[in-house]
């Protein structure tokens, strides 16, 4: 697991709980041409954060989804 994917997981776990790993894996593989989340790099962050905003927003509300996406973008 890369340092960046670790940091994203640490951030997201406060919002999404124990299924965070599954969620993040799903976003990268489904929306970013099968990208393995553990290999994510900085250049992927804008697109990844956009999908986190959309998908997490459906689960935890748009405001919190945006908050999480903004935090990921600042990494």
């Amino acid at each position, binding site marked *: 697991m890369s340092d960046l994917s670790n940091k994203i997981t640490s951030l997201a*776990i*406060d*919002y*999404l*709980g*124990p*299924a*965070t790993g*599954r*969620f993040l894996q*799903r976003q990268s593989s489904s929306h970013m041409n099968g990208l393995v989340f553990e290999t994510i790099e900085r250049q992927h962050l804008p697109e990844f954060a956009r999908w986190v905003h959309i998908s997490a927003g459906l*689960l*935890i*509300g748009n405001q919190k989804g945006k908050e999480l996406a903004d935090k990921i973008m600042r990494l």
Partner: protein
Amino acid sequence: MMRKMMHSLQIKLVLSFVALIIVITGGTFLLTLGQTRTALLEATRENLTQIIGMVSTQITPADINVMSGFKAGDETSDSYLSMLKKLRNMRALSPNITNLYVMRLVDEKITFVVDDVEDDPAAIGQVYEEPEAKLFDAVNGPAVSNNLYTDEWGTFLSGYAPLKDTAGNTALIIGADMEAAKVAERLDFIGNTIYIIMGLAILLAAVIIGIFSVTIIRDIKKLNKTADEISKGNTNVSVNVNRKDEIGELAESFGRMVTSLKIMMAEDEK
């Protein structure tokens, strides 16, 4: 219904807080009322000492000389009526005083010289049966009853002061009575005031506790309802509790669990 109510956290919280307030205020009441009553009685005694001290200075040596000469049957004499009028005028200046009277100490017996009571006054030479011990202290200086004292005329708090002749000897003793009802009125005022303050404090505390517990219980009920919905298979729920305290933290953790459950259930469906 009643059984469910008795197990309600809100009822338990309100009842326990109200019980706590009653115990605290009740204890404070019992402690302060006794102390306050003692202090008030002491203040009344001091007030009576000042009054009797002041009254005794208004009786001149000439008056004392005249009164010392009174004997049984002089009640209709001009000099007696003049002294009686003087006492009544002085009493009129002190609304808290019910009676003013002058006595003589002869052979360890107290006899009346002038009594300003309008209904059934003591006659000149009438022996004061069973006077309180404090009265004898007045030979040396102003003295006031330690507590309410009951005699054939009623229950009073009394003050006494010596009336000295030109040679400086105690020729007569002047007494002033404050009616028990007036003293009790002052004591009751304090008691009633404390009761009112206590009642208001309990009422205010109950309202504050009621509001406080209602908001806590409301949010716990929301969490309970969400858990209930999820346990029945409905994951389309959200935890809508916005608090910064421990309940808020619980709601936040609970929300994360709900979100994870939704993620996992969505994965399973796919």
